[in-house]
């Protein structure tokens, strides 16, 4: 058995410890930047919904500013964002390379996308529910938590899963400029040294990560949809 694997995946067997480490780096980057992006994106999405025209805390000026900033960041390709954020990353985390250096660009690449997704998930909430809550004397903050967030858990889960999956993709790209992780691993060995088995196994691992994320998402959606 071990022989077969060694024959089929010679380079993977040779570097399995490094592979393990890179997988961990990918998980770390996804998890760390994911949690921060989730909090920031959710907060921004909520602010967008609350301040939009007809929102519970309507503020067209604030909405207009956020709307433009988000659009601006969304229009920058991630690879350019990575490069242009190097000075800022250095300032904030002390280094622009390695796993640590990738966190900030990942957050910048994810938050604008995710906040838009949150905005659209929250806007699916029926206006009638908001109206009923207001008629029962719920405050605007109460409406945000007890109506918008509570009633859109399934759609928020859906957009969180989508974002998490695309974040895994971004970490692989961050690897391209020395961020570490599976992307870095695949490029260094699979691509540059033409070790096909490494590319192959990396893809499988990424696929498994994505599938796990999606399964968790589906489970939550199923549990919370009535």
């Amino acid at each position: 058995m071990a022989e077969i694997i060694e024959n089929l995946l010679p380079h993977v067997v040779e570097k399995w410890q490094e592979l393990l480490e890179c997988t961990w780096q990918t998980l770390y980057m996804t998890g760390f930047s994911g949690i921060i992006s989730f909090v920031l994106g959710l907060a921004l999405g909520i602010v967008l919904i609350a301040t939009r025209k007809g929102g519970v805390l309507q503020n067209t000026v604030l909405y207009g500013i956020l709307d433009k900033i988000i659009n601006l960041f969304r229009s920058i390709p991630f690879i350019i964002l990575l490069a242009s954020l190097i000075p800022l990353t250095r300032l904030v985390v002390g280094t622009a390379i390695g796993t640590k250096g990738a966190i900030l660009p990942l957050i910048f690449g994810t938050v604008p996308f995710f906040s838009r997704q949150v905005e659209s998930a929250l806007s699916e909430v029926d206006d009638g529910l908001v109206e009923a809550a207001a008629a029962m004397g719920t405050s605007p903050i109460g409406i945000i938590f007890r109506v918008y967030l509570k009633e859109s858990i399934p759609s928020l889960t859906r957009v969180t899963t989508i974002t998490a999956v695309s974040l895994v993709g971004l970490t692989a790209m961050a690897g391209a400029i020395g961020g570490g992780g599976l992307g870095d691993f695949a490029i260094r060995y699979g691509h540059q040294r033409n070790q096909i088995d490494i590319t192959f196994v990396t893809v499988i691992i990424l696929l498994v990560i994505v599938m796990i994320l999606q399964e968790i998402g589906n489970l939550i959606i199923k549990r919370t949809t009535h």
Partner: protein
Amino acid sequence: MIELAGISKSFVTKGKNVEAVKDVTLHIKEHEIYGIIGFSGAGKSTLVRCINLLERPDSGKVILGERELTNLSDKELREARKDIGMIFQHFNLFPSRTVFQNVAYPLKGRGLSKEEIKEKVLELLKLVELEDKENAYPSQLSGGQKQRVAIARALATDPKVLLCDEATSALDPQTTHSILKLLKQLNQNLGITIVIITHEMAVIKEICDRVAVMEHGKVVEEGEVFEVFANPRQEITKAFINTTSALRKIYDLLEENSPVVALKPGEKILKLQYLEKSVSEALISTISRKFNIDCNIIFASIEIIGDAPLGGTIIIAQGKAEDIQEAIRYLKERNILVEVLKDGGNH
């Protein structure tokens, strides 16, 4: 109970100004069921939303009991809204919450213990006859059941007023009837004042004490349901009456020259309409005896509104022209509106 004084509200959409409500003044009394009827776009919803200030009127005052709601701060207004329950055409229940959680919603954050909330919710569910649906989700309920849950939820804060915006418009006639019956019971047993918005005449007739007819943002006619519908002054009010009265069928029959309305000489088709609450004498048999005429009832549409009959009868009267004239005079003296719809000529 509720005073609306000079309420106006307009909306600007796509640069166009729509005056949804124009200078409406209404007084809704305590413990009554007050109906507001009008066609789509008349401004009914906007007006009722001005009562709990979901919509801020551009001008005018809203007074509930002693308090002028239009003067309250946002926080005071939220507190005041607990005195005003509201139900909607599409129920607006929270789909992610069970029936129990929906009804408990307005009770949260009011310093009640879990047990107190539970007791209150179960009591409300019993009131709307849904004790067994406690753990169901709204998606598992029928329209009528959903509206009952919505009513229970609206009553959770023991409001003095219940606003119903087209609360039965999404329901079939039978379910509508059962919901209206429930509202009537609540009105009688809890003394809650009810404001009902509708475009259905049948709803007004079934439970309202007083009615306002709205057209183009204005209240064009107002008063006791019986008075308004016995003596409609506005075309629109007549149109609403026609939507439910079977009497209008006679006009179709006349137009078609149906055999039902074919007359021999000496016969006349008369339409008799009751205008006062007092009519319960046996008028038809009285006139046939007294004036020696034969009365053949083609059809009648009489409904009991506010404990008195409202409606009319279409008869073919046969007899001498003078006798029929006398009979008509007799009826008119008793405040019956008589119209000769067709005259068969003399012998």
